[in-house]
């Protein structure tokens, strides 16, 4: 018996070694980046192992002002918040109807809307650019918001429809009996009940849009309206010829901080959001 216990103990020690090692591979580069973002460029070159005390905060002010990442950060916030708001509103309206109302084209509309789940952006790169140009929405945060909203509809409708289907019908029926009109049923009864689903959808889309790069790269070329990922990528091109590494590292940290904060608070929603599409389909 004790032999078996020893064996199990050994397995769990090696399990810890494997996961511990991977965790190290995750945190070591990030920690190294954080340290480097707080050193002068000279120290990055000559003292790779030093701990940055006192921290060289100027990297962050340089990144924010001189490298123009402040603009990008604010643009990203505007586009992300506006997109999340419109995605959740528009998708909730559609998902409610698709989950609850019987009409002939219900399934057709549902599959039409979620069929976009699988197609990468690159397929339609050129026509998307041409279309947005014809609408006079290139280099515009509004244009980017509309495109992000459109691209996020398939997944959001998919998860919200499932969520509305899970809410018991009796509550809604009672409200209708009491004389509530359809808009009131939706806004004062269904939306509050669907709040957990709406929060998940909002968090999931927030991270996705904050991180989005390719569409923004195609649709925005004006430095004033670039989002943070595009700004960062530009900075990297410039850095190949200049050597203010510190500011670049600080820029990467700036892009990571908001999503990491969201991850700390909404970890469960993010994990569920990313995997429901795969598991429940």
């Amino acid at each position, binding site marked *: 018996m004790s032999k078996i216990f020893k064996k199990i103990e050994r397995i769990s020690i090696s399990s810890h070694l494997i996961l511990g090692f991977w965790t190290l591979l995750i945190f070591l580069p990030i920690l190294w980046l954080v340290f480097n973002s707080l050193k002068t460029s000279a120290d990055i070159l000559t003292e790779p192992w030093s701990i940055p005390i006192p921290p060289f905060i100027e990297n962050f002010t340089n990144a924010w002002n001189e490298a123009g990442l402040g603009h990008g950060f604010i643009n990203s916030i505007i586009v992300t918040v506006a997109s999340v708001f419109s995605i959740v509103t528009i998708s909730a309206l559609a998902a409610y109807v698709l989950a609850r109302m019987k009409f002939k084209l219900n399934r057709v509309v549902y599959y039409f809307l979620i069929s976009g789940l699988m197609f990468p952006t690159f397929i339609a790169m050129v026509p998307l650019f041409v279309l947005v140009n014809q609408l006079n929405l290139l280099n515009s945060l509004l244009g980017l918001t509309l495109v992000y909203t459109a691209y996020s509809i398939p997944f959001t409708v998919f998860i919200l429809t499932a969520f509305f289907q899970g809410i018991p019908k009796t509550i809604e029926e009672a409200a209708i009996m009491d004389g509530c009109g359809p808009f009131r049923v939706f806004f004062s009864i269904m939306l509050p009940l669907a709040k957990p689903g709406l929060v998940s959808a909002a968090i999931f889309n927030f991270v996705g849009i904050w991180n989005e790069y*390719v569409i923004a790269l195609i649709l925005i070329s004006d430095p004033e309206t670039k989002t943070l990922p595009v700004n960062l990528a530009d900075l990297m091109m410039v850095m190949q010829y200049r050597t203010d590494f510190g500011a670049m590292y600080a820029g990467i940290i700036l892009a990571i901080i908001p999503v990491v904060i969201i991850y700390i608070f909404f970890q469960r929603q993010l994990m569920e959001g990313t995997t429901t599409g795969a598991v429940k389909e």
Partner: protein
Amino acid sequence: MVTQSKLLIWVFLIPAIFLYSLFVVYPIFSTLWTSFFNWGGIGEKVWTGWSNYTQLLSDENFINALINTGKYMLFQIPVIVILSLIFSMIIANSANSKKMRFYRSSIFLPYVIPGVAVAMLWAAVLNPITGLLNVSLDSIGLGFLAHEWLADSSTAFASIIWVKTWHSIGFYTVLILAALLNIPKEILEAAEVDGANRIQRSIYIMIPMLKNVLQVVVVFVLINALKIFEEPQLMTRGGPNRATEPISLYIYEQAFGNYKFGYASAAGFVFFVITFILTLLTLRVMRGRNNE
């Protein structure tokens, strides 16, 4: 249910249908139309029929990009399946749930970080002079192993596979973990009573029950490999000698580097057909799951 007016249904649906049709569906179809023209973005479109497609087939760089995308798929499947399987099994089997929650959160963390930041972080780590990797090798006396990782075609390719794995392994681990936790406890307990140890339980009971989720993992790896862009664009610029250039970057360069809009659209449409086939495959796998 109480009667609802038909009109109201469409009032609720129209915003979603309109935006989605305009910005997602229309461009996909428009890609096919544009692919029959010679067009630089401004000025006349010149109808050229199938000429863009015949040119593509003899374009070495296009074929090279297709092969690279295929290679990303082939190399990523075993790496991701094996690692995510090991991680999720260890987490699911563990008795100490607090520690395991910490590991799960850590492994998933990179998945929420922007792709641009991940690519830049690893470009910095792999930098031959200032990068963490070479600096570490130097200081533990293994300086002779230091290398210009992104300048040599084989290590550049391996680096991108590694960065992709580092970025996304948490997603796959959580996916498999969800399936593992769905396995009825009774089955595992019965096996334990019958004398099966942890490893035996993993191999003979858990892995067969994971067949379906593993198929889903493979399909997702394939679809995500089609989207590889930030890492080669920012870390290697598709080089050296186009060794790391995937189809996405090739299309982007044709369209917005060379302004060959018609030609890039033809490449995009070929890409669409490939994606469509993979999507059908996905649906078949999913349907297989539902039937069981």
